């Protein structure tokens, strides 16, 4: 290296030591004080923190977040402050053409700002590894097994028997299936305080199970059964937590919402027994709740006209036009041939985006259902799959 004049050799070293000391002290302060300063500040800047966790695992993640956040804030203020101070302090005064000292570097300083960050990231790594082991731990005998299926573009949930296993007993018959992802009767209803093992499967593309209040997400990968465990906290009883697909899965990605409801263990057991009994009592009657209540179920006698038939295959209907008699109830025999993919038939006024007049139950294929459609006035309607708006056609009522 060319030998340029070196002045102030001691001063950068001194400064480097000071900065290193500040970094170290900052970290020590965070560790010694626990994370109290951060906790205290939550009321002021709550949006710099994730939501309060509603699961035991989420609570650990939240603690790790607080640690990382504390260290990040210290580093941010020290380094950003150093930049600003340097710029303000050492800006050139007008008319000052003197050459500043030509410092080429300082070995001690380099060592300090290599070693100190290494120590910081070592602390962060160990902390996150320990947390990871807790978050990813699974028990040999979880108290409940549930499966979430993410299909374009609908979540459904199945309560599994305890002998279910994704490898040795993957075809075990579910105790109960819930095909409605949202609302008071839809979504994932779970007891607090029990270890829940959630299996994830997808028949089509990659999705992700994400509940912000779990502080957790896991991808739902076709060809692979992912799973994770969690326990809802006791104080969650009565709570509903919103979840959403977090991995781009196509056109309807932003519509893949679901709810998680928390109940006491006793309430849950009753709820589950009632649901199973109801499902067994009526294998496939007219859908339990075909519509939002605006359309009275067709309670008149058997419809006069022959039922219309409609098949869904490869995410398309086999027909683009249907016709039905006016002012009389009629039936649609709907055959969903797409394995694991949910479809239905809904009737909208005028166009597929018009007001919904009838919504048939959504169910995954291969299966068939017969929908009872209430009387419609003469006119042009659209029939459409609620899950896949691409699937649509025109219904002529005359």
């Amino acid at each position, binding site marked *: *290296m*060319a030998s*340029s004049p070196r002045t102030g050799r001691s*001063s*950068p070293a001194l400064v*480097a030591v000071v900065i290193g000391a500040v970094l170290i002290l900052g970290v020590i302060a965070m560790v010694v004080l626990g994370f109290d300063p951060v906790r205290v500040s939550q009321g002021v800047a709550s*949006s*710099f923190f*994730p*939501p309060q966790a509603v699961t035991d695992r989420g609570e*650990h*993640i939240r603690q*790790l*977040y607080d640690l*990382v956040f504390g260290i990040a804030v210290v*580093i*941010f203020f020290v*380094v950003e402050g150093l*930049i600003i101070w*340097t710029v303000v302090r*050492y800006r*050139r005064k007008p008319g*000052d053409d003197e*050459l*500043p000292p030509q*410092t*080429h*570097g*300082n070995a001690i*300083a*380099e060592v300090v700002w290599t070693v100190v*960050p*290494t120590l910081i*990231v*070592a602390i*962060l790594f160990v902390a*996150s*590894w320990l947390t*990871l082991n807790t978050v990813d731990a699974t028990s040999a005998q979880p108290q409940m097994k549930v499966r979430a299926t993410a299909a374009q573009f609908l979540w459904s949930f199945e309560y599994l028997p305890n002998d279910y296993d994704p490898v040795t007993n993957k075809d075990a018959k579910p105790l109960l299936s819930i095909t409605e992802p949202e609302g008071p009767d839809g979504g994932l209803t779970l007891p607090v305080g029990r270890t829940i093992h959630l299996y994830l499967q997808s028949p*089509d*593309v*990659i999705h*992700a199970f994400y509940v*912000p209040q779990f*502080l957790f*997400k*896991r*991808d739902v*990968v*076709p060809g*692979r059964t992912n799973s994770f465990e969690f326990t809802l906290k006791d104080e969650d009883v009565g709570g509903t937590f919103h979840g*959403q697909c*977090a*991995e*781009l*899965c*196509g*056109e309807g*990605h932003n519509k893949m919402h679901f709810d998680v409801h928390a109940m006491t263990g006793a309430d849950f057991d009753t709820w589950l027994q009632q649901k199973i009994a109801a499902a067994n009592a009526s294998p496939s009657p007219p859908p339990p709740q075909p519509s939002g209540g605006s359309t009275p179920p067709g309670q008149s006698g058997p419809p006069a006209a022959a039922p219309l038939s409609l098949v869904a295959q490869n995410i*398309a209907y086999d027909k683009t036009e249907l016709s039905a008699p006016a002012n009389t109830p009629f039936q649609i025999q709907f055959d969903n041939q797409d394995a694991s993919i949910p479809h239905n038939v809904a009737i909208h006024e005028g166009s597929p985006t018009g007001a919904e007049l009838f919504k048939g139950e959504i169910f995954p294929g291969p299966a068939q259902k017969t929908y009872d459609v209430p009387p419609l006035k003469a006119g042009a309607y659209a029939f459409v799959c609620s899950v896949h708006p691409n699937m649509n056609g025109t219904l002529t009522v005359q």
Partner: protein
Amino acid sequence: MATTALHPAARTYRSTLYEWVTTTDHKKIGVMYLINSFIFFFIGGLLALGVRSELAQPGLQFVTDQVYNELFTMHATFMIFLFIIPILAGFGNFIVPLHIGAPDVAFPRINALSLWLLPMAGLLLLLSFFTVQAPAAGWTSYSPLAQDRPLGSVGPGQDLWIVAVVLVGTSSILGAVNFLVTIFKMRAPGMTLFRMPIMVWTVLVTSVLGLLATPVLTSALIMLFIDRNYGGAFFDPRNGGDAILYQNVFWFYSHPAVYIMVLPAMGIISEVLPVFSRKPLFGYKAFVFATAAIGALGFSVWAHHMFTTGAVYLPFFSLMTFLIAVPTGVKMFNWIFTMWRGKLRLSTPLLFALGFLSMFLIGGINGAFSAAVPVDFALHDTYWVVAHLHYVLFGGSVFGVMAGLYYWFPKMTGRMLSEGLGKIQFVLMFIGFNLTFFPMHQLGLAGMPRRIADYSSTAGWNDLNLLATIGGFTIAASMVPLLWNIFVSLRSGKPAGDDPWEANTLEWATTSPPPPYNFDHLPEIRSERPLFDLRHGHAAPAATAVVPQSASTSH
């Protein structure tokens, strides 16, 4: 000017346009790289405005779900593959031969080929808008969503995307070979490796990354193409393929690509800071080793994009990701101490360099959150990640690009850009950038996933999204003073002279713009700052011994 004597007195029949289109001069190619990149920067920017407009309020106001997916997919594709990567290659093209005292790159015709592949790729991407469905599977094009099937990626749009990205990759590979041979074989006498400007070192490491990683992406994309068109079984579980395999191969390129997108910007900053502080770079060798360390570690962190797939050995990738913070931190402190006790001239290039320092710092810090795997379980695929990547690629790379543009524009054109307009642009861009991307941290923490066209009005995300949209349009507004500045300066800017900044490196030892063969004569090279030595008497001016351009190798 020294060049005039070499031009024939009579006008040739060849037009300027013909000259530029057929040129193999690395400087003209470099400038065309920049122009081409800026065109796609503006296209990508318009797409981003579409995204921000749609998200300003809940509900779908302007586009359908499908078009929204096309908007952000193409925004990222243009910005990454046709703006950031090529514009940094463009700066490298213009500056590397000048920095090492060479008359041109090693393979000038291959250099022209690398350039002209880029507009071709861009045209293919634009063409995809006229197919059944423009690419809408994200710039990552994960399988099976990118497969040709209903609700996936139907039609030839996705195929055009694959071909375009393969063309960009080919351009990168050719460029990397060219840079490596140029740097190792064409340095001027006295220009030892450890006297090369840091900019050249970053281009060197970037080229190694590009050479090793890009073929992996190319093979991934070819396999995806086979899956889509010839019934392959690589990545589609329906045919027995593996969806996770695609992610592994894709990120094996695309994470090192992040360093391809930021290292040369670090190189630009490492040139600008010493010049405007009037001090040497603090810790030159530390910079070299840190750059090499980032490049090496960059190959062992790809799976940190896949922490939530449940198919990754998490502790390893967590540790490696944390470790990358160390060499990056070394650079940060060396930059700051380059300014320490200096005499800072707050000209536009330095302002953008300071923008880089302060914003890239945030991009480094918020990245550490995701290195902590359990925290990433909460933040992955939310707006937090959108904030992080823009603090790195916009706060880092784009601010670096602007610093480089203001710094080297006088060398490229012979005219200065206006300082006043430059400062207006900086202030608008800095404010707009933070307005846009800082609220995204909070949106991500509040649980807003990325890549959604719509959100519920009761989710509590309305205000921050509106703020981000206002910020986005502020960034767009900051482009007006830039374009006006370039337009005015090209017509009537202040003549630059050879060395308007009192700079240190060889490009300022020749005319602005330099002659086709770059140097009439080279000063003696005895440190990484030959021009400083010349000014302050540590080196003899080379003017005493006139070195013809061809003699520099026979010296």
